[in-house]
């Protein structure tokens, strides 16, 4: 069974807006891939061809871009993708414990997807949240900071009932406690 993909009128209008930001026709490929991935959930070769045709550039170029950047899903992933950071600070603060907990809980290893297609786990490089380690990102979207195994459990359970965690605003520390640090 081969699925066909196409952009609707609104998508094409959005793509025209994107194209207007760049002076040549190759440059919009990254934002258009983002748009396609948001719409279809992945950018498998059939989608890459659609992007190539829409922008009138070679499909090989689109494939080259998709395979270079880790956030483009060149093959299908689960509905929710857990990107668990394990780089340096997260490593120091227990990122691997979180990863292994998640692996045990879902019964899959990093790089795999559960049979029901709900969850994928990936061990990823630094996501730029080092002060709030260990952390993970869900499907290129929300950041979950200061993870504990309990917090991971509640996030997974929440997602099973369709509840995506909300954006956690982390207050700027100097905006908070002024009298506490002024001894001296």
């Amino acid at each position, binding site marked *: 069974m081969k699925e066909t993909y196409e952009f609707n009128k609104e998508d094409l209008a959005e793509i025209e807006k994107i194209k207007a930001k760049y002076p040549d026709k190759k440059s919009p490929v990254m934002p258009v891939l983002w748009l396609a991935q948001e719409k279809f959930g992945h950018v498998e070769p059939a989608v890459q061809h659609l992007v190539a045709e829409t922008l009138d550039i070679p499909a090989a170029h689109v494939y080259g871009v998709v395979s270079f950047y880790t956030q483009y899903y060149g093959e299908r992933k689960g509905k929710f993708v857990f990107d668990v950071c394990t780089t340096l600070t997260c490593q120091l*603060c227990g990122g691997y414990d979180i990863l292994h907990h998640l692996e045990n809980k879902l019964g899959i290893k990093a790089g795999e997807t559960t049979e029901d297609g709900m969850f994928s786990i990936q061990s990823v490089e630094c996501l*730029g949240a080092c002060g709030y380690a260990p952390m993970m990102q869900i499907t290129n979207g929300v950041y979950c900071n200061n993870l504990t195994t309990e917090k991971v459990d509640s996030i997974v359970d929440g997602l099973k009932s369709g509840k995506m965690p909300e954006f956690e605003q982390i207050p700027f520390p100097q905006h908070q406690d002024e009298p506490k640090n002024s001894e001296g």
Partner: protein
Amino acid sequence: MAVDWRNFEPLLIPKIPNLHKIEVFEKHDGYKQLAKVLKEYTPEKVVDEVKAANIRGRGGAGFNAGLKWSFMPKPDGKPRYIAANGDESEPGTFKDRQIFEYNPHLFIEGATIAGFAMHIDAVYVYIRGEYKAWIDMMQKAIDDAYAKGYLGKNIMGSGYDMDMYVHSGAGAYICGEESSLMESLEGKRGYPRVKPPFPAQKGLWGRPTTINNIETLANVPLVIKNGADWYKAIGAESHPGPVLYGISGHVNKPGVYEYPTGMSINDLIYEVCGGMRGGKKVKAVIPGGSSTPPLRGDALEGVCMDADSLRTAGSMMGTAGMIIMDEDTDMVDVLWRISHFYHHESCGQCTPCRDGTGFLEKTLIKIRDGHGEMRDLDLLLDLCTQMEGRTICALADAAAWPVRYTVTRFREDFEKRVKNTVYALA
């Protein structure tokens, strides 16, 4: 020399609620500096003022921003660009996102002033793709600035036109390197370019381009408001200004803190971050992102966070993303993880980097798993020598430095893990 940080009030991210909203920003002197520049300054005067302030690039290299601007050729009527670097992918770095979240308009104002100074047509704000939430915040701020006439055609009635666009990355450390960032903006794989030609001669789409870090550009309105002399009096003499320290690891209160440059590392750990978790001793400090050489915990006395002090101590300021490790940290494990990162992120263009990062990681796995030999330590250092300075961009150096300095400065950790294959002659 100690800086007076206790009485310092944040300037880049001041304590004003809802400053990310344009109305609040305007109420607190926002976009007044842009108005002043457009009305009273010539582009040359802006460049001179910023050069005199000696804003040193906050993205890692620490180059004088005004001097970089002065490399742009004379305008010839064709497009010129700024690429604002918010890729922020060096492990340990998470500071620019604070600007996107808490004070995006300061950055927009700074970038527009920079645009006026260099006759720029468009600013592309490159933000790493993982920062989806912050990309949306930045886009909202830009839309608001357009609506109020601070961006777009005829900015504040001055006749100066400039556009600003956000470009989302998609997960590649290398795209923080300036020429790779331009390749990525042009819709290609992020392969760094051979220099020369430098971006000021041939940058985005072959046109003159300046690449500045987000935090660097956010400093510009402060200089215009208060003057270069005021700015130079903040923090360390040769590396002035406020800086966002991103502190992570085994401290009690990790996070991003804004203080003057030149703060002592011990003050940052014990006073600002509330000391080490569990009262443990410091074993190692990486001062500016994972590629900067680590310092020993027992050699931190008097070391300050500015280019000169850190150079004397044997490291670099980098992005001021500090990673603090306590006495229980296994440096072999840490170094393996750093090497794994650079192996994963090497773009693969140059052999010394593509293969070198792999060999470093393999050798470190061997040592980590207890199969290493004493000579492997020398092999690691030899590999570093064969990588440093032999590639198009600095990723190979960034991968080699932590290895070189962790192996030499924490040699006892490594010697404990390898088989002793040096036998005395009978």
